[in-house]
């Protein structure tokens, strides 16, 4: 809504200064390229641009040529719409609502695959770093074996440590010191 108001207020001074051919207020074009409209009133005599393949051409056109196309389409659309050819219809739709200007798609086709490949590569790099560090790191301490920890349990029972709630208490179900597999 804010953008809409700004577009409208931006369009108002233009309308008062430019010629009668440009009195048309248009959301689709006014927000897309307001500069274009300013520079256009002099280029009404520019060479006509072919409308048949406007989708491919549109990105390469200069602002003046785009304005010519706008004017061409404006006159074409005043005719009976049943007389319009498919190319003219496509051109009219593409220029007004095609994927250019503010309607450019955020992602190109194939972007998802690229994102997936790069993410997978980064996860792979992380895994390689993990394995590399693990291969050069020293062995775990000798107390981290099952045998040692079971022996620790025996010693704890001999010494009757933690007789209330811990390993030496009645009906103890826990694992005591055993944590390695």
């Amino acid at each position: 809504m804010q953008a809409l108001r700004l577009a409208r207020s931006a369009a108002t001074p233009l309308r008062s200064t430019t010629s009668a051919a440009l009195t048309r207020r248009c959301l689709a074009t006014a927000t897309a390229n307001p500069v274009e409209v300013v520079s256009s009133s002099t280029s009404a005599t520019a060479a006509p641009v072919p409308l048949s393949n406007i989708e491919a051409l549109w990105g390469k056109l200069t602002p003046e040529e785009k304005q010519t196309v706008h004017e061409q389409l404006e006159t074409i659309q005043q005719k009976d719409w049943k007389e319009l050819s498919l190319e003219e219809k496509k051109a009219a739709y593409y220029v007004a609502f095609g994927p250019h200007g503010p309607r450019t798609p955020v992602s190109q086709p194939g972007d998802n695959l690229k994102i997936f490949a790069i993410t997978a590569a980064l996860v792979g790099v992380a895994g390689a770093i993990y394995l590399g560090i693990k291969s050069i790191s020293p062995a775990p301490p000798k107390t981290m074996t099952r045998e040692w920890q079971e022996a620790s349990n025996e010693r704890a029972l001999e010494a009757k440590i933690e007789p209330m709630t811990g390993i030496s208490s009645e009906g103890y179900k826990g694992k005591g010191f055993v944590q390695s597999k």
Partner: protein
Amino acid sequence: MRAQIVSSVLRTAARPSVVARGARAVPFAARASSSHAEETFESFTERYVNFFKTAEDLFEVQRGLNNCFAHDLVPAPSVVEAAVRAARRVNDYATAVRVFEGVKEKVENKSQYEAYLQELKPLREELGLTLKEELYTSS
């Protein structure tokens, strides 16, 4: 730019809303919490049909379409017809195609869209309107 934003904000703030005007007329015993006036679908349809019948240029038509399609409902076929006829009046083919694209976005499923197309087939034939999916058959 900043001054423009500030001025438009102030303008919005200064404009008394419809709801507030309605509430002021009601005696103060009315409850504030649930006293919003609710527009029925029929009055919504009538409002936008009238709007599109009187819309004077492309900017107004597209503004009306933006507002109309912003609600949580699919505009009635009469609204769609009025919008398409407004687009014809201001000589903008692309907007007429876009109206049907908007309907396609708003409906819940394909059969509803088909129903709209069937309902408005005479209009499309009368104006020579091609749908977007007919213009771009491959995509």
